[in-house]
């Protein structure tokens, strides 16, 4: 009788990683597998019960958190990272980074560093991925893709992808060779045909298809970001973004002084303060409902402007903190 190894075949490829979050009935999620290879490193601290556990019957008992790290705090030219994540039914996961993902100088523009992440979300599962921004240094080539597969277009997502102009303290201003970031959400089911639900593809290359320098194309913004929100777990959050966008003051509108300012309740006062802060930070944003998603785009003059804004928006609305705990917004602190 031929010997069959009881162990899975080794997947020891450099940069390969895997996170499997399974549900132990009735509702205890467990990290079935966390594996990684240099230069990727995954750190999973103890899972915490979500603050709203008592109020929400569907919520799992624990929310797991995994830090995505790289040795040296960044990605060296030629590195490749390939992470696959699987969320079983009714599990919740928070993915975090520890500091911005730095992309280090490449000796040759054609030597592209890559990072790929594929996430499979089963019915009722939810993912929060609010990382620090990617910070490509001058003379770098980087390409990343985040592909999310939703079972039958269900599953909840709140994921952010943002990039900065480099080390602004050193005068870097989009001095990269190439930066590409792709976010895709697919619907896949046993019976249904695989269907593209959302694609957000950013392509920054040095010359690009215009003859303009990258920095000239950016209209004085040092950070650009996209926030993708989908699913029942984030229904109130996505509505909040839409409402706040609707409540933004009109561009080019004027105060003629013939309307008296009504007294503001505390919530309205915080909104006015936030809008004041947006102006001060040169932050502009938009939110739109697209095919069942809420897609938020933002840009600001400096990184901290966007970071504060994201944190303010998410903490004010508060449902992520209730459902996933304070850890979910750790990167926005």
């Amino acid at each position: 009788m031929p010997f069959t190894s009881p162990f899975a075949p080794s997947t020891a490829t450099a940069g390969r990683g895997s996170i499997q979050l399974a549900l132990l009935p009735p509702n205890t999620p467990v990290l079935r597998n966390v594996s990684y290879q240099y230069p990727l490193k995954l750190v999973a601290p103890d899972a915490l019960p979500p603050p709203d556990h008592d109020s929400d019957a569907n919520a799992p008992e624990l929310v797991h958190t995994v830090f995505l790290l790289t040795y040296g705090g960044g990605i060296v030219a030629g590195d490749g990272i390939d992470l696959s994540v699987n969320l079983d039914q009714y599990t919740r996961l928070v993915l975090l980074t520890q500091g911005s993902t730095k992309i280090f100088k490449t000796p040759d523009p054609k030597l592209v560093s890559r990072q790929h992440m594929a996430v499979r979300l089963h019915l009722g599962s939810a993912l929060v991925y609010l990382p620090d921004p990617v910070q490509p240094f001058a003379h770098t080539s980087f390409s990343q893709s985040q592909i999310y597969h939703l079972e039958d277009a269900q599953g909840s997502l709140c994921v952010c992808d943002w990039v900065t102009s480099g080390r602004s303290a050193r005068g870097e201003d989009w001095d990269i060779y190439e930066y590409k970031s792709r976010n895709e959400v697919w619907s896949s089911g046993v019976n249904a045909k695989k269907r593209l639900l959302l694609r957000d593809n950013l392509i920054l290359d040095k010359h690009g298809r215009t003859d303009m320098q990258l920095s000239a194309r950016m209209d004085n913004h040092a950070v650009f970001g996209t926030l993708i929100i989908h699913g029942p777990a984030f229904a109130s959050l996505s509505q909040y973004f839409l409402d706040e966008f609707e409540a933004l003051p009109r561009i080019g509108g004027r105060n003629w002084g013939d309307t008296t300012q009504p007294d503001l309740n505390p919530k309205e006062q915080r909104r006015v303060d936030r809008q004041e802060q947006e102006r001060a930070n040169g932050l502009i944003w938009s939110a739109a409902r697209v095919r069942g998603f809420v897609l938020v785009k933002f840009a600001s003059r400096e990184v901290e402007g966007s970071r504060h804004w994201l944190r303010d928006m998410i903490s004010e609305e508060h449902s992520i903190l209730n459902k996933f705990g304070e850890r979910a917004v750790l990167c926005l602190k």
Partner: protein
Amino acid sequence: MTANTSHQSSLEAEIADLESRLRTARSRLNVSEAPSHSSPSQPVRRAQDEALHALLLLSDSALPLGSFAFSSGLESYLAHHKLQTSTSATSQAASFSIFLQLSLSTLAGTALPYVLAGYRHPEQAETLDNDFDASTPCTVARRASVAQGRALLTVWDRSFKAKYNQNNAVGENIAADSLTAFSKTIRSSDEVNAHYAPLWGLVTRALAVPLHDAAYLFLFSHARTITSAAVRASVMGPYQAQAVLAGSDLQQRINGLVEDGWNTPIEDAGQSVPVMDLWVGRHEKLYSRIFNS
């Protein structure tokens, strides 16, 4: 009245441009096919005339697509920049030329691959339409694209189809057949949107316009639409606008963009000017608007 004359003159400029391109194309043909062309060979010329006729139809600014209603973010861009600096007429024209560059490369990055794919694979119309819809990041851009796409489909259905179907049996012109099938599904299905870019590819294929011309005209029409919007937003005068359109600058840029995007698969279509999404998306927040996008 002025709008009329500007349309008229833009049309004339376009015709002149098309004719000159036809001449150069012919002369190239003459060089490559010199022997057979010593006596003008009728069939070759007729094929070209067909394509030219279709090209003229599609380049007509009277083509009822409603493009005049869209500024593709120009209005919002101007509003965002008015806040930062007080703009004089000259700097307005300068910032318009930057916007035109950015807008063209955005369109070439996001939509051109779909035009080419629609032309090359008309049978995939529905997938292309779905994927384009999935890649359109905001309601404003979506509205503009769908409005013009549906208008183009209507023009095809009501005006072009009869002529182009009479010479062909079913199955001969796959683009025409796909268009017929597509306009049937659009009435029954909510999942079909009729975006402009892929349909442009299908219609130009059905009309037998050469692919390069179809792509060139797609970008050129966009430049014309924005320039015309700029005239109406009083960024520049109609003569200045014609100068922009006639410029060899624009011609080279469009040619370059077509060349760059020629082999880009739709999966790699993407935004190269991220701030454009914000300008277009924030159009809804303008205090006063004269355009739909």
